């Protein structure tokens, strides 16, 4: 079991992650940052990141209804070859494609679908977390 550090006193919980490209993509992998969100049922990634890796959200036939604080919208879903974060690897995981505002320094949201078969421990005083 690996222990990860985060700032438990301010800001979001940022998680380092990487994703592998689809077989047809021009790139092999991408390192990026996600916000850990136990209120999100699915994992969401920046659309431009997915497109760079060769995924085509606009061509996806799989969609979901995404509920935010002020809207419900239909968003495309793509299935990643591999998503890695918190020492875990998920193969074939579906993620929602979403565009984030340019000034926000995150690339997506790590949701409950990534966490469900594990035990997530968050120590806000110590700034330590584990996913076992």
């Amino acid at each position, binding site marked *: 079991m690996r222990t990860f550090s985060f700032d438990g006193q301010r800001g979001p919980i940022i998680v380092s992650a990487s994703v592998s490209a689809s077989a047809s993509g021009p790139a092999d992998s*991408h390192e*990026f940052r996600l*916000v850990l969100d136990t209120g999100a049922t699915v994992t969401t990634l920046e659309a*431009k990141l997915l497109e760079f890796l060769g995924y085509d959200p606009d061509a996806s036939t799989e969609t979901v209804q995404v509920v935010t604080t002020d809207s419900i919208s239909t968003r495309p879903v793509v299935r990643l070859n591999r998503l890695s974060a918190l020492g875990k690897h998920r193969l074939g995981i579906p993620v929602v494609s979403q565009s984030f505002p340019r000034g926000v320094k995150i690339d997506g949201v790590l949701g409950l679908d990534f966490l469900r078969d594990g035990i997530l421990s968050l120590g806000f005083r110590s700034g330590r977390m584990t996913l076992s």
Partner: protein
Amino acid sequence: MDDYLILEEIEARYAPDWVLIDEPQTDELQQLLGGRVVDRGPDRDDLYRKAKALGLHHIAVRKLGPWLEDLVLVL
């Protein structure tokens, strides 16, 4: 701009821009340690276009600078 830099050097040189990093080095926890900054700018989309044009295979695109104190997330 093609020298290998550790993340602290990248932050010091290029914040608050977005940077395109080729062959990023990470630790066993997948946290970014450093890499070669091949481009920088205020627009993330431009960096993805540059990465495609250069035919890069393993990248990181990172917004530098501190988390803004008056920016909160309600996802």
